[in-house]
């Protein structure tokens, strides 16, 4: 199972990223847990300077933008191969 973290204080962009990640997970039909990380000390552990951030299995894959669903799907399948 994959662990997906959405890093961000809960602004519009973070909500949209969470929504896209959920869609990508559903379309792939995989099991994943989506966690929203909203506290800054926790967010800063991933060493990002712009939100939203996307973390899959503790690996940061994007920061400061909303990747497309297709891109997120690629991130997810890459993570599955590595797992």
């Amino acid at each position: 199972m994959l662990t997906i973290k959405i890093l961000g204080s809960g602004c519009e962009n973070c909500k949209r990223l969470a929504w896209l990640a959920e869609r990508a997970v559903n379309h792939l039909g995989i099991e994943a847990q989506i966690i929203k990380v909203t506290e800054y000390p926790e967010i800063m552990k991933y060493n990002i300077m712009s939100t939203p951030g996307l973390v899959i299995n503790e690996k940061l894959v994007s920061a400061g933008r909303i990747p497309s669903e297709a891109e997120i799907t690629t991130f997810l399948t890459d993570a599955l191969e590595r797992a």
Partner: protein
Amino acid sequence: MTTLPQLSNKPTAHKTYWLVALGALAWIIAYQIYEPLAEWLVYGAFRLPEDSRLSESLAFFLADVPKILLLLSGMIFIISIIRTFFSPERTRALLGGKREGIGNVLAAALGIVTPFCSCSAVPLFIGFVEAGIPLGVTFSFLIAAPTINEVALVMLFGLFGWRIAALYIASGLTIAIIAGYIIGQFKLERFVEDFVWKIQSSADATIEKLTWENRIERAWGAVREIVSKVWIYIVVAIAIGAGIHGYVPQDALVGIMGKQAWWSVPVAVLIGIPLYSNAAGMIPIVSALIEKGASLGTALAFMMSVVALSLPEAIILRRVLKPQLLIVFFSVIGIAIILTGYLFNWIM
């Protein structure tokens, strides 16, 4: 230094370049025909009489809407391409080890080209402070980034010409440099929330490698996002502006918004505070007001206040700044904007 996975350069790259070329061609054609088209619609298709107030307002509206939307999409695309070459991480690296003074100037300049959204103000602030960048330099960046707003810049260019657009950049930079420098001199580090100083993240930054195709895709994404968000405000505001253009008598506003009305600058700044994030909707109205006698300094102060003094941003920054510092931050920006307004009223 860790790198994000390289995004693949798919065989669709050629298709992307063709689309850009086609888009550019369509843009150029549209830019050539919008004005004759608007004239033809008003006087040819609708057969409205020349020199009437209605036809003048309508012609103004039908020409300005496509003009601004075209300029907005074209210039946001170019600005967004430029911005893919600057990341907050790179900006932080450039600012590291710079003294105050030169650091403030550089931070303000980088504030224009670094992609920034106010929701990222906190991680950015923490990232800068943690890298040892002085507080005043960090503030110069945090003032310049939202104040020199790309949408406002494009609209000023479209409605007033390049001189006023350049003036807007110059005053935004000046405010950011001076306000940041002054805040730096106060030595207010103790008013930064304590948790900020305790955060320890690994020192290496994450830098992404991008292909040209990625840059184009992102710039196109930015155009779609911004235009879909602001077009309705622009259309409504241009309609109001067109109404003012046709129906308000010349020089009607000299008395209340002209140079002689000294109180108009601070009042304009106060009115601008609750209008945050709506620079797009304000500028066409401001443009019409200037035409009717409002002075330029007052109008510039108003626009600066709309973009720079925003309540949501204050709430976001409260997470890292204690109230005392937040008040100093916004007061210094407010005073700098008012002084800039007086300066332009005086020299223009």
